[in-house]
């Protein structure tokens, strides 16, 4: 399947960079480029793309106005949005309108790649739901599916499925993904509440693991339990949580 995309940015060089980097993404086909908000709205209405790369600061209306305008027309399927901007202060607004990602300029091809990847997943998911005629959008659960936070000068819309495990550090939690760790000012209990228990398990007062990346539970010679992750990393497990996991492993 091809993903039809529109690039909206008032700067020529910014659009050029996107165009060049998107050559590396064979599935993405650029169907139009808009240099202003009104131009972008017209383009989206005319071509009905699946994906929109949107700058926030543009002459006339801003990126959010574009989205407001587009969502007002009923007959139009809303494209997935990836924001590309130099300003980090709109991140929460972007998150709230379910943007796919928020790229802070300058960004690398790697970062763009992960954003496109995520957009692709979202677009497939909506296509499938649409195929099943009266699909009910999300699975309806109240658990969080992603977290927005700032780490090392970037804005991350992190899917919880990317989280390997979470460790407590006093008033902070350390979120470990495949290649990175992020320190967040958050409590374990608040985080545990928001995470789907089908997916995440608290194995210790100071550790939550993603069951998807759990390889085994090992009994150490001293009688303690250790959780071994797929990448070989070990996380200590307390006895009180052990019964819960053996139950879970028995089920699967």
């Amino acid at each position, binding site marked *: 399947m091809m993903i039809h995309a529109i690039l909206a940015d008032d700067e020529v060089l910014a659009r050029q960079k996107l165009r060049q980097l998107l050559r590396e993404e064979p599935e993405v086909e650029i169907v139009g480029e808009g240099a202003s908000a009104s131009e972008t709205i017209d383009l989206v209405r005319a071509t009905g793309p699946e994906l929109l790369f949107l700058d926030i600061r543009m002459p006339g209306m801003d990126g959010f106005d574009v989205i407001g305008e587009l969502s007002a027309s009923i007959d139009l399927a809303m494209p997935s949005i990836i924001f590309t901007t130099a300003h*980090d202060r709109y*991140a*929460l607004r972007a*998150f*709230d309108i*379910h943007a796919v990602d928020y790229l*802070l*300029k*300058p*960004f*690398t*091809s*790697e*970062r763009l790649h992960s954003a496109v990847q995520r957009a692709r997943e979202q677009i497939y998911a909506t296509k499938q739901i649409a195929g099943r005629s009266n699909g009910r959008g*999300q699975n309806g659960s*109240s*658990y*969080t*599916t*992603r*977290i*927005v*936070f*700032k*780490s*090392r*000068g*970037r804005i991350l819309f992190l899917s919880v499925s990317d989280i390997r495990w979470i460790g407590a*550090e*006093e*008033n*902070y939690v350390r979120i470990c993904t495949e290649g990175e760790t992020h*320190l*967040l*000012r*958050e409590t374990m209990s608040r985080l545990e509440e*928001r995470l789907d228990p089908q997916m995440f398990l608290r194995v210790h007062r100071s550790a939550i693991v993603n069951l998807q990346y759990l390889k085994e539970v090992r009994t150490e010679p001293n009688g303690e339990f250790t959780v071994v992750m797929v990448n070989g990393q070990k996380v200590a497990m307390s006895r009180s949580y052990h019964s819960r996991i053996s139950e879970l492993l028995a089920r699967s």
Partner: protein
Amino acid sequence: MFLPISRTRPQPIFMHPAIFVSASVLLGMLFALQQWMSVRLWSYHIGIPLLLEAWGLQYFLWGVICWLLWRWMGTRIQQASVFYIITRVLPLSIIISIAEEMIWVLCFPNLPLRHRPMTYWQRLAFQLDAELIYNMVIFWCAFALFRGIGYYQKFREKEDAAAQLAVQLAHAQLATLRMQLNPHFLFNTMNSISSLMRTDVVAADTMLEQLGSLLRITLERGEVQFIRLNDEMEFVEMYLSLQERRFEGRVRQQLSVHPELHDALVPAMILQPLIENAYTHGLSKLDSNGLLVIEALREDTCLTLSVLNNGAGLNSSLPNGLDGQGVGLANIRSRLQLHYGEAQTFCIREVAQDQVRVTITLPLQFSSGPTEKLPRFGA
């Protein structure tokens, strides 16, 4: 930051009308007692109630008059020139002295004692003869008091302004010191990117992103002097990943922060110059097996930050040498001094063969301010 010098003069507490008039009446009472004792010595008898009444009323009147003077003319009296004093205040003092006496005489028709009955004007003339100079002295004493208060207030204002200026100066100095830290490293990184651009576009791209993030954070912080250790370490990590690209695997980086210290307050950009120093004067001299250890430890009420490198000993480049090393470290020293005075320590020491450790100790303070709105959860 400009702190406006406060222009509001607080009124001295004794110029409150009730306090001022009561004090004046009390003074009159004391004079009354004094006269009562002295007339007894002359075996002359005047009843104490009458003395208290007469003196009390006189000083009550003066209290009210002087307070009104302060109220209406206080500022003019404080600023009066000699000309103004002679042409205005002097005649005013005579008029007020007479007026006060007129009221007083009105209230005591039986005085002076043991005299044949006199008309009001005769009594007034009699009293003025004895009391006019005395009244004038009271008036000019009040005048002197008001001038004195003016001088004192001006003196205090000057003192406050001087203190505020000192604070402003310290702020300005701190701001400059912070500013000096950034460009140096900015241009080095730009140079690295420029050289990478020709050989490795992807790496140059990554470095630009990292530099963008660093600048964004630096600008966001602006003039903030203190930040959470967590934020400082995040900055350090970004800086280290930039350096890692420049030194490609030649240096092993170790970071350790005690979890209790994530919220501890440290001066912004305190670690980066130390790390930069470790690279330029130590680690850059190694081909391999470089080691950089950055630690944050808690020791009772102190926070210890240390940066260790195994590049070169101190003898090869003296810390206060003229090769540029001195500037960054001297900056840190003066910032620490300005922030903490004597409550901090800064030391640079060769701990083993070719291993240099810089250690900073600060009083441990924790951030109480609100945190950023991020992170947030979403469905």
